[in-house]
């Protein structure tokens, strides 16, 4: 997939662990882990909203688009 989730980068900047974030956002550790490792197929706006509030950032800080041909073939 061409969309990269930079959740780990924002978590490191805000110095927050996955378990703390999951409590703040209201998602399970498993679901957050799916998002962090780039395995997620889709994200709800409500989830994006909760993560942005918790990490005090913009959606653009979390999501990045790459036009990599190798990834497009996948």
């Amino acid at each position: 997939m061409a969309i990269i989730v930079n959740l780990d980068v924002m978590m490191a900047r805000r110095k927050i662990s996955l378990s703390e974030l999951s409590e703040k956002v209201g998602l399970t550790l498993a679901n957050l882990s799916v998002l962090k490792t780039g395995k997620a197929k889709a994200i709800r706006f409500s989830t994006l909203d909760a993560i942005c509030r918790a990490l005090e950032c913009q959606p653009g800080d979390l999501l990045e688009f790459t036009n990599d041909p190798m990834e497009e073939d996948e």
Partner: protein
Amino acid sequence: MNAITSSYTKTQQLLKVMYVFAWIVFIGLSINFGAVLICFIVSLINPAIAPKLMDWSQLATLQEQGPLQYYSVGSLLIVFSLVKVYLSQIMLQLLSGVKMQSPFTPKTVRLLEKMSYFFLSAAAIAYLYNTQLAYIRKDLNISLDKISIEQFLILGGLVFILSQIFKRGVEIQTENELTV
């Protein structure tokens, strides 16, 4: 939410009851297959005993008048009974493996596809059997009960359509599970 939970519980209970019935059907069909096989083998050794074991009188007449046709019809009957046992066994696997939290699994799709192929195979075997009976009626003037093909064709088609719907369901469920 209470209505959904109650309906979910009812479905689970219904599936448990169906599982018990599926076991009864499987055991019954297995016994039937065993009886047909044993009767056929016994009739080859001692033709007089077979009609006493089960309702074999029509086939016993055929054995006297047309042994080749008897072997052919007997073999088809045995294979047909075996296919029915296997179909009931697939049904058991389906019912034991179904989880209402995530019902669309690749295993379920494979089992449904297998079931549809076996239903269509049963229809093909029934067609061969009925064709044989037509020849026997013409040559030897012996009338035997036909097997109905339509039900197996319709079931085979329906189950195949269901398997394709479940295949799409697996894709949608996977996407849903990976949506955070």
